């Protein structure tokens, strides 16, 4: 069979393929990212590419005569990339992080202390005086500031006003009222409430029950444990005993309850402001109500939200700090809120007239002072990863697999106490 031409072609092509890397490498050694003189590299969450920040970037480029390379990632991908960067020593100039990484990287020596800049510019920019106290504490290590909070969020109660009205249910304020409402709202393809498969949604319940996640003094985990068990069992009972919530499905995102709410299949969800936009966008007909966090023993909720930090090996920390200052200015916060409804960490933001006059924003803003960071004490031990892994397993075993909260939580506590000390 005369198959020679095609075979020769194959060889030629393959030869060309082998030549590509060689040729390309002759084309000139490209520069590593931080060393590139005219480029300022920022790692950013793909969901936070706001117009308000684009404007700041344009001004920053103009003022400092640099080009900003805004690299957008999902959080797990951003972390993978960043850890590879730390290993190689080629780091970006500034990193946005999802909360918790600042202290972790301060401990490991990968984050730069910003205390010198805070000492110099703090008063003029209102840091830390104008930031909610929890946001300063969670970004400090050994008395020094390593990161600056960009957004501050917290969990509250979102509800479908029409459903509550039709069922003649008042907006619940306590756990008991919540259970009662959920029972009345359940039926006809609608769940009274939808719970999240993600373990971080455990924390509002725990802090409302007055539970301390970890006490470094005594080395005890989840104290008082009886209250922790009761809080956990309460959630599992919503699903398995009272059947007012669907069994969550384990996964990798947090959007399950929001989707059910948007679809009109859940009357209430306990979540943060990140779910407002998708609900309003995909289901504009839903009469969305926002209520303060539930109260139990304590008026409290879980704090969350992103911060920024500067890698220790970043070449131009002056520029990085300038970026931080610009992007956290009150006007920028105001513009970002107007654009996306995101909540901001400045105390003066919570007092802005447009925040006070917005029904949803006002509720969140009022809850922020009661927001706690539940993993801070664990983070400072450097064992947060292991803790989160064990917590996730325990939470899903109870909430999804209906294992008894008492036994499962105590087993988790015993194991955590041994690896945290």
């Amino acid at each position, binding site marked *: 069979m005369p198959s020679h031409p095609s075979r020769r072609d194959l060889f030629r092509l393959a030869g060309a393929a082998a030549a590509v890397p060689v040729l390309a490498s002759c084309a000139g050694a490209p520069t590593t990212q931080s060393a590139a003189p005219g480029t300022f590299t920022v790692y950013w969450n793909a969901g936070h590419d706001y117009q308000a920040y684009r404007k700041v970037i344009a001004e920053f480029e103009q003022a400092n005569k640099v080009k900003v390379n805004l690299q957008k990632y999902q959080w797990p991908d951003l972390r993978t990339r960043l850890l590879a960067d730390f290993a190689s020593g080629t780091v970006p100039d500034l990193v946005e992080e999802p909360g918790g990484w600042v202290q972790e990287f301060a401990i*490991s020596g990968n984050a730069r202390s910003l205390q010198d800049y805070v000492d110099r510019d703090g008063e003029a920019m209102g840091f830390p005086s104008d930031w909610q106290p929890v946001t300063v504490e969670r970004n400090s290590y050994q008395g020094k500031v390593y990161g600056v909070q960009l957004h501050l969020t917290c969990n509250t109660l979102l509800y479908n006003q029409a459903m509550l009205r039709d069922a003649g249910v008042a907006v619940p304020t306590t756990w008991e009222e919540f259970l009662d409402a959920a029972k009345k709202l359940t039926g006809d393809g609608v769940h009274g409430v939808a719970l999240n*498969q993600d373990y971080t949604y455990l924390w509002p319940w725990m802090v409302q029950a007055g539970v301390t996640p970890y006490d470094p003094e005594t080395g005890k985990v989840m104290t008082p444990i009886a209250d922790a068990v009761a809080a956990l069992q309460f959630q599992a009972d919503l699903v398995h005993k009272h059947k007012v919530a*669907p*069994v969550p499905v*384990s*996964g*990798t995102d947090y959007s399950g309850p929001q*989707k*059910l709410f948007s679809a009109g299949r859940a009357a209430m969800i306990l979540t943060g402001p990140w779910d407002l936009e998708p609900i309003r966008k995909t289901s504009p007909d839903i009469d969305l109500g926002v209520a303060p966090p539930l109260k139990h023993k304590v008026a409290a909720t879980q704090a969350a939200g992103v911060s920024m930090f500067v890698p220790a090996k970043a070449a131009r920390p002056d520029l990085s700090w300038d970026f931080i200052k610009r992007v956290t200015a009150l006007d920028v916060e105001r513009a970002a809120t107007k654009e996306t409804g995101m909540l901001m960490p400045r105390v003066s933001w919570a007092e802005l007239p447009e925040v006070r006059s917005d029904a949803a924003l006002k509720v969140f803003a009022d809850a922020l002072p009661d927001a706690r960071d539940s993993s801070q004490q664990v983070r400072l031990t450097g064992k947060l990863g292991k803790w989160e892994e064990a917590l996730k*397993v325990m939470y899903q075993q109870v909430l999804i697999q209906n294992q008894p909260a008492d036994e499962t939580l105590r087993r988790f506590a015993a194991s955590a106490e041994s690896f945290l000390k």
Partner: protein
Amino acid sequence: MFRPRTLQGRYARTAYLFLLPAILFFAAFFYLPIGNVVATGFRTGPMADQWAGLDNYGQALSDPAVRHSFLVTAGFAVMVVAGSIVIGLALAMAIDQPLRGRVLFRVLLLVPYLTSVAIVGLLWRNILDPELGVLNRVLGAMGLPGQTWLNTAPLLTIAAVTLWQSVGYTMVLFLAGLQGIPETYHEAAKIDGADAWRRFWRITLPLLAPTTLFVSVMAVISGLQAFGQAYIITGGGPGDATDLSVFHIFNVAFRTRDFGYSSAQSVLLLIVIVAFTLVQLRAGRRGEVTY
């Protein structure tokens, strides 16, 4: 230059000459990094810069989470390896018949393999969602009860999704192997009066041995290294029901940032996979036939 005197020596020299680029390439991009991984297994700390001796190995061997993830992985691999060989071979033999539209069948059956594990994962996560997924909508329309497979049989479910994607690929490999079996063998056997079942065991299977060996070795290797299914679909849950080894190791490395511990676990996993592969190769060598 060295000139081998024997014929055998000359072949050996040719062989090494042909192998030279490969040896250099694998040294630079595989053995050097793998050596680095082995070295990291003896260190600890977030930058893996403190000496730890055998601590990581000792810890891995006594860690119930590590043991659990190995068991989960073994269960997953058994389902996927058995499934892909049996179903893949069955489909290949079906399609090897002179059927109308066999080209279409061949194309349609391989189609899922052409897209990425991540997309397949996202797609099935969406389809299987008990509340909003399209599968329960369809089941409901047919009057059937809805499924909650991701909660009731999570490991089986992700194994099934994996098979859904990869069985076309084993089918193609078996098909290429079947094409290589000369028709004369079957003809001769038919004349001898052997029925289809006999011909399958006596001719097809033995002559397919190199392909079967390849498929089973690769299936074991990839089954034991499955990752994307847990990373995308279940997040390792519910609880730790789908905490596949490599997913576990990934989390130890990139979430917990304990590269020393994750490297030690990778080395242990490597040892397990090498052992399995050696056994298979040995068994395969016995099964190989020459014309």
